[in-house]
C-alpha cells in the first residue's frame, strides 16, 4: 500500500504540476508543428531533428549574445531552414516524406554533435562557466528566458505550482489558439485542409497546392524549433547531445491522438507531459525505496502511456486523406 500512498503523494505535490507544464511545453510546440504540416498532407517526422537544431542554435546564440530571446529567434530561422529542406525534397521533388524526414533527423544529430566542440569548446554538454573561460566573456550571461511571476500567493498550492512560469509556456498556449484559428477560421486554413484531403479537387478550383504545402511545412519548422529551444534556453540553459530524446516522436503521437487538431494535440501533449512528470516524481519519492538500478525503468512510463493510448485510440482518429502522398499535377 506504500506504492499507492506514494502515487497519491505525487498528485498532492505542486511540483508535479509545474514539471507537467515544463514537460508538456516542447510537446505542445512540436505537435502543433506536426499538425500544420500534416493538415496540408505532408508527413513530417523530421520534427525530432528540427527540435534538436532549435535547441542547439538557441543555446549557441544565447551564449554568444547573452540574450536567450535572440537564441529563440535564431532557432526559428534555423527551423524554417531545415523545414524548407524537407519541403523542397518532398513537395517539389515528390520525395518519400519518411525518408526525407529520417535523413533530416540523422543530419541534425550528426551536425549538432559535430559542432559542439567548435561552438562551445566541449563535447557532450555545455557548461556556461567553462564556455566563459574559453571565450573570455566577462559580463554576466543569463542563457535562460526569464520566468514571469504570476500573482498567486507565494506559499499557496497554485503559487508553488504555477507562480514562476516561462513566457515560452504561455507562448505555447497562445500558439495553439492561433494555430486553431488559422486552420479552422481562415480561408488559408480551409485551403490547407482541402489540400491535405484532396489536392486534386483543390487544384481544379484554383488553389495552389504547392504553395499551401510549403506554408504548412515551414510553419512546422517554426513551432518545432521553438519547442526545441524551450528544452535548452527555456528550461535548463544548457544544450546536451541528443537532448530531444524522442520528444519529436512523442509529439507526433500527440498529434495523432489529438486527431490532427491543434487543441487535441495540446491536450494529448499535456497527457504525455504529465506522465513524464509522474515518472520523474515517483522515482524520487521518499515513501518508497527505489534502487538506482531500477530508476531507468521509470523513464519508460511516458512511452508506455503513448503506446497504450495510441493503441486504444488510433482507430478512432482519422488522418487527412492525402497525408504523406506527394501531389503530382497531371498533364
Amino acid at each position, binding site marked *: 500500500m506504500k506504492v499507492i500512498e506514494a502515487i497519491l503523494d505525487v498528485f498532492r505535490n505542486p511540483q508535479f504540476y509545474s514539471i507537467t507544464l515544463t514537460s508538456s511545453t516542447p510537446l505542445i510546440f512540436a505537435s502543433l508543428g506536426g499538425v500544420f504540416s500534416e493538415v496540408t498532407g505532408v508527413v513530417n517526422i523530421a520534427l525530432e531533428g528540427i527540435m534538436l537544431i532549435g535547441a542547439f542554435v538557441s543555446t549557441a546564440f544565447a551564449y554568444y549574445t547573452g540574450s536567450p530571446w535572440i537564441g529563440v529567434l535564431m532557432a526559428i530561422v534555423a527551423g524554417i531552414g531545415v523545414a524548407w529542406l524537407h519541403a523542397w525534397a518532398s513537395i517539389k521533388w515528390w520525395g518519400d516524406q519518411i525518408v526525407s524526414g529520417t535523413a533530416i533527423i540523422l543530419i541534425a544529430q550528426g551536425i549538432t554533435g559535430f559542432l559542439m566542440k567548435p561552438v562551445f569548446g566541449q563535447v557532450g554538454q555545455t557548461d556556461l562557466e567553462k564556455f566563459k573561460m574559453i571565450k573570455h566573456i566577462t559580463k554576466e550571461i543569463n542563457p535562460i528566458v526569464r520566468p514571469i511571476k504570476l500573482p498567486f500567493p507565494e506559499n499557496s498550492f497554485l503559487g508553488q505550482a504555477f507562480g514562476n512560469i516561462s513566457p515560452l509556456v504561455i507562448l505555447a498556449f497562445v500558439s495553439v489558439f492561433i494555430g486553431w484559428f488559422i486552420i479552422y477560421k481562415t480561408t488559408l486554413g480551409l*485551403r490547407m485542409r482541402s489540400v491535405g484531403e*484532396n489536392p486534386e479537387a483543390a487544384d481544379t478550383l484554383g488553389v495552389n497546392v504547392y504553395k499551401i504545402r510549403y506554408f504548412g511545412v515551414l510553419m512546422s519548422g517554426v513551432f518545432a524549433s521553438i519547442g526545441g529551444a524551450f528544452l535548452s534556453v527555456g528550461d535548463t540553459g544548457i544544450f546536451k547531445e541528443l537532448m530531444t530524446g524522442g520528444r519529436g516522436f512523442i509529439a507526433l503521437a500527440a498529434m495523432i491522438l489529438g486527431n490532427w487538431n491543434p487543441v487535441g494535440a495540446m491536450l494529448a501533449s499535456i497527457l504525455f507531459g504529465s506522465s513524464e512528470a509522474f515518472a520523474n516524481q515517483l522515482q524520487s519519492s521518499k515513501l518508497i525505496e527505489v534502487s538506482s538500478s531500477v530508476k531507468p525503468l521509470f523513464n519508460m512510463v511516458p512511452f508506455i502511456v503513448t503506446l497504450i493510448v495510441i493503441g486504444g485510440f488510433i482507430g478512432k482518429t482519422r488522418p487527412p*486523406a492525402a497525408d504523406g502522398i506527394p501531389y503530382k499535377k497531371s498533364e
Partner: protein
Amino acid sequence: MYEEYAVVMKGIVKRFPGVLANDHVDLFVRKGEIHAVVGENGAGKSTLMNQLYGLLRPDEGEIYVFGKKVEMKGPKDAIKNGIGMVHQHFMLVGNLTVAENVVLGSETTKGRVVFDLREAKKRVKELSERYGLHVDVDAKIEDIPVGMQQRVEIIKTLYRGAEILIFDEPTAVLTPQETEELFEVMRRLKAAGKTMIFISHKLNEVMEISDNITVMRLGKVTAKLITKETNPREIARAMVGRDVVLRVEKPPHEPKDVVFEVENLWVKDNRGLDAVRGVSLKVRAGEIVGIAGVAGNGQSELVEAITGLRKIEKGTIKLLGQDITGLDPRSLRNMGMTHIPEDRLKYGMVLQYPAYYNMILGKHWWEPYSIRGFLNHPAIFEDSRRLFEEFDVRPRNINMLGGNFSGGNQQKIVVAREVSSNPKFIVVAQPTRGLDVGAIEFIHKTILRLREQDVAILLVSMELEEVFSLSDRILVMYEGEIMGEVRPEETNFEEVGLMMAGKRLEEVRA
C-alpha cells in the same frame, strides 16, 4: 459568328503518344439545350470535354463560347467563360462540409483573411433552393450519399456563375432513383436557361433527357442526331459501328440438379443491423437465378455472406450437398465457387498489379500457376495471353497495370479469371455496371454460355432490364427479405417494381 450556339468546337484534333484521341471533331451545342455526347469507352468523349474545360489543350481546331472565340489555358479560363464541369469522379474534399466545398478557392470572407462561413452557407442555400438541389449545407461530404455529393458538384459550378454545364457520365454512380432526381434537376436548369452537355453511353437515358445527340467512335464524330427522330438501335449502331444486340437471345435450357442452396440466412451489415433476414433460395445447374431490388436492400450483404466475406449470423449454405456455412473464400474457391464482385475496383482486382497477376488472383496457389510455393511465371503469362485472346481484352498487353485498362476491359479481365476456373457455381454481382453497350453484350453472352455448360449462376443486379433478359427465375429482395419469386416470361416490370417497393407477390397478384 455562331451566335445561336453556346458551344462550338470546330475541327478539334488531339493526339496522345500513339493515339489520335480526337480526329477533326465538330461539336455544335445550341443555347439552352441538353446535348448528349455518346460513344463507347475510349471513343474520345472525355478528351473532347477536357479540352472544353481547359484541362487539355487541342493540337488543332477552334473553340467558340457564346459566339466568342476562346482559348482555354486552364479550368480558370473555362470558369471565366461560364463553363462548369461535374466530374465523373467527384472533385470534393471529404472532411469539409458541403458549404465549404462549394466556396473553396473563391471563399466568402470577412476582412479578407477570415473565412465567412455564415455567408457561404447563405449563398449555398440560395442556390440550392433556386434550382431544387437539395443539400445539407452543414454535413460533411464523407457522410452524405453519392446523389447529394453530385448535387454539391452542380452547386459548385453554379456558384462560379456557370451557364454551360458539362456532365461527365453523371449517372454511372447513381441508383435509378437518384438518376431520376438528377434528370429533374437538369430539366429545371434547362428551364432556367442553362445549357448542358451530357456525356453518357446509356442509351435509354440519352433518349429520355437530351435534345440533340453527337455520337463518337474511335475519335471521330459518326453521327449527329435529333433525339426525337432517332431510336436506341440507330445510336448504338453509330457508337459501335455494327448492329448491336441490345437484348441477348436466351435459348431454352433445362436446368439439372440443385447445386447451391441457402436456408434461412441471416446476416448483419456494417452497422450491426440485420441486412439479410431469413433468405432461402436454390440454384440448379444450368440455371440463372436473378436477384432484383433497389440498391441497399441487403443484396451486397447476401453476396458477401455467400462468398465467405461476411459473417453469417444464422442459417445454412450448401454447395453440392455439402455444408459450406462459414467457410473462408479460399476453401469456397477450391470447392468450385467463384465470384464476380460488384465493385471491380475494390474487390475485383489489384489496380497496381500487371494484368497477368490480376488474371490469377484467387487461384494463384493452384498448379500450374504456383509450384511448391513458387510462382510459375511462364504458365501465368501463357494463360493470361490465351484469356486475353479468348475474352477480347484490349489492348492485348498483359504487362499493363490493372488500373490502366478501361472499365469494360477491367471487367473482362475479372470475368475471364472467374469464368476460366471452371466453376460449379458462380455469383455474379452487378456485372455490367458502368460498361458500354458492346461490353455489356459480350458479358451477357458469356454468362449465357456458362448456363449452357450447366454452371449454376446467381445474378445480382440493380438493372431490371438485365435481370429480365438473363434470368430463368427472378427473386425480388426488399429490406433483406425475398418478396417473391417470378419467371420473367410470366411477369412484367410493373409487377416486379411493386415488389421492389415492398409488396409481397401475393399482395401484388391479389
